[in-house]
């Protein structure tokens, strides 16, 4: 049957589809230039990245990198987006990237695509790795069996990408003749299928999608009610979903075998040996501790140095230029707004985004591309079970030590809503890099390093207890860890830089407008001495409970903009660089402790709104305030009794 590309002229779009960790984003980068757009799929928080092709053969065609999926059924929010995008937008070309080292598993998704007669072009990635494993693929044979084009590519160095682009162009121009392979299931299932086809009048591929458990096809299936009776009459050994899936895996395996030649397996590579070491708890845990220590060293030592550099440069060279431009404006109120917005706001943004966030993203991208992160999830799965979470939550939680914004966004990988909500709530309590700046800059500097550690310890206790309580009270099912452990790979620098850049851009879009607006509002309130009035009604309360002076309460408001601004404002308001002239050591300790927990910063609140809705955002915010104030008041009263810091 000749396949007619009905999508011609409608949607000249290429999409990339494949299992997670198959190198999709890498191939995407090979196809596109710098300009990429991150957008949310309508109605979801799942992100899809689009761009335009920038190759010799293929210019200015929209290309979209869809979330990684193991199947088209849609068993997680990400997979549902991939499915819906393919079936509703009907892109003209679907590039299905496969991992050659593990062809049969990856062919499972391919079979689903081909079964639905979609314009698939297969890109075989990791050819060299497969060869060194002793696996040689006959891609012509594979193409013959499946009836779709197959191209060997190397996503890292771009080999084969031109050929892939040529094929894509052919498909777009309807010059390729598809002869779709039609998978044949076991006898019983085939009998069931033909009965259901004649019973419902639906097409074969729709019935198969229905039986696989794909809820997206539901509205199109006729006479659903009776279908289950028919299925039952076949006395299948397993559930119908499992039966279909089982057969499909068998088919995938036989196709893979037919097109593969396995020569003798070579010795374990050094990366495989390293992989074993990172997984075995005895060696894996020390490596994990080392990796985490390395991340924090980079962040705190380098990040802090980097930040100073940026602040000095900004204040020394850029701010004066802005200021002199602003001073040209006659209206004083406008001058003020611009000063706060463009000087305070941008400085705040730059000094978090550039040093901490970019370094953090850079390191995380390395960990991600090298395939190390799933090992962390595996090693810490048991610990997370104590909080009724599982290993997958650990990745967002680690990100939280850098910055809560990307961490909250990354919680999307969790498939259950309950686990996402718990993880996100805990994230708001994790001391991010800005909080660390306060703990180090105030407590460690003026009170003592052991007290800085004490704050971390208290935070940890709070996080564990909140997690413990939420884990046992929030309704919903406690699922479990299911995670593919990709082989360790040497990441490409180009890819990491691009990834870091895309994420940094996303952060800047969310955080900068808020920082600027927030800086203007708080700055103006401060200029007209209104801040004091706002604080006044509550300050006696805080003064009594926390035993902190009024000015400190004001600094806490600044801390909402950016946590470490609380410390900067404290220094400004105290009028001295030595905080001890203004506050007692105990007060400094309480101040650090409270700022480390109270209210998520404004950028965090923005993502919270986006991810969990305003109601839960309010709950989380109130809860952090209550916890912070309670802790502060306990410490204020308890420490003198115990004779600590008095």
């Amino acid at each position, binding site marked *: 049957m000749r396949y007619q590309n009905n999508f011609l002229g409608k949607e000249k779009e290429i999409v990339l589809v494949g299992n997670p960790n198959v190198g999709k984003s890498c191939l995407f980068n090979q196809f596109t230039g710098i300009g990429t757009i991150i957008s949310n799929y309508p109605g979801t928080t799942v992100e899809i990245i689009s761009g335009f092709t920038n190759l010799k053969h293929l210019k200015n065609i929209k290309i979209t990198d869809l979330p990684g999926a193991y*199947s088209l059924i849609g068993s997680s929010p990400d997979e549902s987006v991939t499915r819906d995008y393919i079936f509703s937008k009907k892109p003209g070309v679907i590039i299905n990237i496969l991992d050659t080292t593990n062809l049969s598993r990856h062919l499972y998704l391919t079979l689903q695509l081909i079964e639905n007669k979609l314009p698939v072009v297969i890109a075989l990635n990791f050819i060299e790795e497969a060869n060194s494993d002793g696996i040689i693929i006959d891609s012509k044979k594979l193409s013959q069996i499946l009836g779709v084009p197959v191209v060997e590519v190397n996503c890292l160095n771009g080999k084969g990408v031109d050929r892939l682009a040529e094929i894509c162009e052919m498909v777009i121009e309807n010059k390729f003749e598809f002869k779709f392979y039609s998978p044949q299931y076991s006898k019983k299932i085939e009998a069931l299928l033909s009965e259901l086809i004649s019973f419902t009048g639906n097409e074969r591929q729709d019935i198969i999608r229905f039986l696989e458990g794909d809820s997206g096809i539901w509205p199109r299936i006729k006479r659903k009610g009776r279908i289950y009776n028919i299925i039952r009459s076949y006395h299948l050994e397993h559930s119908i979903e499992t039966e279909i899936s089982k057969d499909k895996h068998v088919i995938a395996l036989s196709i893979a075998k037919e097109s593969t030649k396995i020569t003798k397996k070579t010795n374990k590579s050094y990366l495989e040996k390293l992989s074993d070491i990172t997984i075995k708890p005895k060696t894996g845990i020390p490596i994990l501790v080392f990796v985490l220590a390395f991340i924090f060293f980079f962040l705190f030592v380098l990040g802090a140095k980097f930040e100073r550099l940026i602040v000095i440069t900004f204040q020394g060279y850029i701010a004066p230029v802005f200021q002199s431009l602003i001073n040209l404006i006659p209206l004083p109120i406008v001058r003020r707004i611009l000063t706060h917005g463009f000087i305070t706001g941008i400085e705040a943004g730059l000094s978090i985004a550039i040093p901490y966030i970019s370094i953090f993203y850079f390191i995380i991208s390395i960990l991600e591309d090298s395939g190390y992160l799933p090992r962390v999830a*595996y090693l810490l799965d048991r610990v997370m*079970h104590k909080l009724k979470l599982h290993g997958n939550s650990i990745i967002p939680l680690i990100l939280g030590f850098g910055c809560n914004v990307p961490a909250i966004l990354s919680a999307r990988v969790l498939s259950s809503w309950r686990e996402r909500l718990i993880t996100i709530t805990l994230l708001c309590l994790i001391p991010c890099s800005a909080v660390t700046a306060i703990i180090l800059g105030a407590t460690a500097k003026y009170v003592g390093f052991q007290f800085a550690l004490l704050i971390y310890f208290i935070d940890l206790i709070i996080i564990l207890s909140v997690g413990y309580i939420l884990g046992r009270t929030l309704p919903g099912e406690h699922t479990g860890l299911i995670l593919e452990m990709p082989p360790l790979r040497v990441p490409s620098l180009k890819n990491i830089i691009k990834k870091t850049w895309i994420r940094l851009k996303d952060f800047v879009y969310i955080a900068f407008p808020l920082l600027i607006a927030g800086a203007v509002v708080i700055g103006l309130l401060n200029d007209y001495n209104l801040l004091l009035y706002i604080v006044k009604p509550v300050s006696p309360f805080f003064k009594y409970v926390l035993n902190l002076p009024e000015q400190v309460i004001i600094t806490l408001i600044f801390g909402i903009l950016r946590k470490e601004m609380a410390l900067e404002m404290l220094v400004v308001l105290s009028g001295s660089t030595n905080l001890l002239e203004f506050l007692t050591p105990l007060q400094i300790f309480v101040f650090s402790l409270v700022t480390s927990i109270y209210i998520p910063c404004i950028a965090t609140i923005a993502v919270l709104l986006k991810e969990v809705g305003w109601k839960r955002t309010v709950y989380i915010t109130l809860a952090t305030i209550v916890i912070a104030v309670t802790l502060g008041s306990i410490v204020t009263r308890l420490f003198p009794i115990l004779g600590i810091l008095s």
Partner: protein
Amino acid sequence: MESIKKGDYLKTIYHLQKNKNRAIKSVELAKDLGVSKASVNEMIKKLANSGLVEYKRYTSINLTKRGIREAERIVYKHKILEGFLLNILGIKKSKIHSEAHKLEHDFSDDSIKKLEKILKKPETCPHGDRIPDKDKEACLLDSVGIGEKAEILFTKIKNKKILEKVNSLGFVPNTKIKVLNKIRNGPIELSLKNCKIALGKSICRQIYVKKI
């Protein structure tokens, strides 16, 4: 009389649960056995005391792992006896069920084993149902040790999303796996078709395998 009844309850719950794939209500059990709800509740309490079922009042009855094993032992005996009655004694097929039902409680495990040998280890009973003998070899995935290989027999995952994910990753019957690493009381890492996958303990406890 008492122990006969107990076995019947277990068997009925076992069959109902297998068909419905969920916990059983006491009403359903009463209907199936043709007894009053009160006597069902009384027996369920007894079964719960001996650790064979878990139940929530009036709502749901679930066999415990021990209960399942016990029920499967009875079903297994029943089916072997059916085969014996039909193939060796030549009793009519319509009668073998009730006859086997009477015998199943009195035959010892050893005699059944010997009968099974004589019948050349059948896989199905005369009615064509699977004898849960194979299931007796079934163990949970998390009982497989490091370096051991196993073949997946079936899964008992109720959460559809998890089932679909596990299916699409290739955890389907007849697939061979090898356990690579294990954390005590924690997840396991296994290889399946040249690919490594980590599974949490709770998922492993819903996948049944046969060690090979």
